[in-house]
């Protein structure tokens, strides 16, 4: 791609773009609805699906847009009758051996094949009444990936993911012609820690996640952009959750969200499956010595504890947002307390790799460092009051005088106060490259649950 701007036309409209830019990429980025399967921004063009045909003036036949580079004076037509007929014919070929089992397919609702059929297919019944070639279904690829040979349209996005992105070449196309399928090597399973990305990449229902399979229809899901809290990389994700009437909101899956500066297009499998943590073991009630107490009682108990103790240690979780940490800093100054946020206990050397996984398995560790909070381990004597804001280290500290603001239950005999999880609050995070990102609030609990700032305000600290 050169830095020279050239003028070209699409459907009669004059446009400007860099010379040598991929035509399909330009059209997709600028809101043109061009059907395509094999082209993906991260994988580039392969030219095997033939779906992105456009008419180019001066060329005898329609051309694939993903293999056309923009140049001066190019005249492109994307919506002529020829192109429409062509798309219908290509669809017929793809549906020739497709089982059309959309009612039981998990991808229905977000399937390219289904969408394009509604846009360009809709041909009369009976066009593909011939006997279809039967193939295997529900093949376990390993790493939570399940493959359905019949639904596959052989766009090879998954094969190219392992060839170009992870460079492990774990998948290949086997057999020939109508019998072609995708397969791992015989008696082998996928090994890659990023394997579930191919489920996101698959444009049809051929590759499914066994974790999400048959759990929820996608049209019942709502999506919200967010940030993964698995490690300091802060990969961008989409949280898919359902908010059915009279039921608590439930997260069904995380999907990778494109952000060139942070994670590109992908996330690791461990981060993808970490949505389960939100639902397990959550604290919902205020407890004191294992019995439930009400809000007013709790506030007065906190007041008394703070009043009678001279030495107060506050532990703040490095998973909290910047603004939350700031209000804890203010409050600790008011209380004259010592504030710590130890990072050592979050380190996991085995988790780290040289791509998206980082050693510090906590989201805002670099925010903690930026705010200059003490990251050493505090010494706690018998009459120190420990105020814990969801820090992992607190469960290993054995002290009688403690107040725990926690999201997930731990073994504690002190005052336990439920805290909103990161999904239930919004603010900023800083990742390992120093990029500050905003994570919006996604879920609202049925019973109101307070965030750190709201708790401090309720107790009477300044925020």
């Amino acid at each position: 791609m050169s830095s020279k701007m050239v003028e070209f036309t699409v459907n009669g409209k004059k446009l400007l773009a860099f010379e040598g830019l991929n035509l399909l990429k330009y059209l997709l980025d600028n809101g043109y609805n061009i059907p395509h399967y094999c082209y993906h921004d991260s994988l580039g063009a392969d030219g095997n699906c033939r779906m992105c045909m456009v008419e180019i003036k001066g060329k005898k036949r329609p051309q694939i847009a993903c293999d056309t580079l923009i140049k001066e004076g190019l005249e492109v037509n994307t919506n002529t009758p020829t192109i429409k007929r062509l798309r219908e014919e290509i669809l017929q070929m793809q549906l020739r051996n497709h089982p059309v089992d959309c009612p039981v397919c998990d991808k229905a609702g977000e399937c390219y094949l289904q969408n394009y059929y509604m846009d360009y297919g809709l041909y009369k019944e009976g066009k593909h009444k011939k006997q279809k070639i039967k193939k295997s279904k529900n093949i376990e690829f390993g790493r939570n990936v399940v493959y359905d040979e019949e639904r596959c349209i052989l766009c090879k996005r998954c094969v190219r993911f392992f060839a170009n992105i992870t460079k492990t070449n774990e998948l290949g196309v086997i057999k020939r012609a109508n019998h072609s399928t995708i397969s791992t090597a015989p008696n082998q399973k996928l090994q890659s820690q990023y394997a579930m990305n191919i489920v996101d990449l698959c444009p049809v229902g051929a590759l499914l996640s066994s974790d999400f399979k048959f759990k929820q229809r996608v049209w019942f899901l709502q999506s919200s952009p967010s940030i993964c809290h698995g490690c300091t990389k802060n990969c961008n994700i989409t949280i898919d959750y359902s908010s059915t009437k009279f039921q608590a909101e439930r997260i069904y899956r995380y999907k990778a969200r494109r952000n060139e500066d942070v994670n590109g297009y992908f996330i690791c499998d461990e981060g993808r499956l970490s949505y389960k943590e939100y639902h397990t073991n959550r604290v919902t009630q205020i407890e004191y010595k294992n019995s439930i107490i009400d809000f007013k009682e709790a506030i007065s108990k906190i007041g008394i504890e703070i009043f009678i103790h001279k030495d107060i240690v506050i532990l703040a979780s490095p998973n909290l947002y910047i603004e939350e940490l700031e209000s804890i800093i203010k409050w600790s100054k008011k209380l004259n307390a010592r504030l710590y946020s130890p990072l050592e206990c979050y380190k996991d050397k085995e988790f780290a790799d040289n791509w998206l996984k980082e050693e510090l398995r906590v989201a805002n560790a670099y925010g903690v460092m930026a705010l200059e909070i003490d990251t050493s381990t505090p010494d706690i004597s018998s009459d120190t009051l420990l105020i814990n804001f969801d820090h992992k280290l607190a469960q290993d500290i054995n002290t009688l005088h403690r107040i725990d603001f926690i999201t997930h239950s731990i073994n504690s005999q002190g005052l336990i106060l439920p805290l909103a999880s990161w999904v239930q609050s919004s603010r900023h995070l800083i990742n390992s490259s120093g990029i500050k990102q905003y994570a919006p609030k996604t879920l609202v609990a049925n019973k109101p649950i307070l965030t750190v700032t709201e708790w401090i305000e309720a107790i009477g600290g300044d925020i």
Partner: protein
Amino acid sequence: MSFEFTKEELEYIEELSQRYPSPKALMLPLLWIIQNRLKHIPTEAFKAVADITKTSEAQVYGVVTFYTMFTLKPTAKYHIQLCKTLSCNLCGSKELLNLLKERFNLLPNQQNGDFQLTLVECLGSCGTAPVVQINNRLYENLTPAKLQKILEDFS
């Protein structure tokens, strides 16, 4: 069961590798070596091939299953490869197929005693269609009667 190339084979491979710009190009010659020695390509051999060609086992698997001349199971004594492409089809390969079905009880991709039938793509001898390749020998200008005689001579 594991597979290893013999010393002579490795020397031959070394000699071959000088001919090609990249090790990937050795894929087919290597598979031929294995197919000729064992009459099939065992899945255990994929790793040896992948190591030399700097590819992966899945890619080798793809190549082996793509070409009809490579088989994953040992072939019968007489491997009949009947061309199913256009020229042979027009010149009567269907009749040859019928003969094999009725007279020798042979169906595509099946074995019957010493015989095994595979329908293959063009064998590159359209001028003398229809053709059949039995093991490494090509039989040209066939009629059902000729083919019957050839097969009866074998058994």
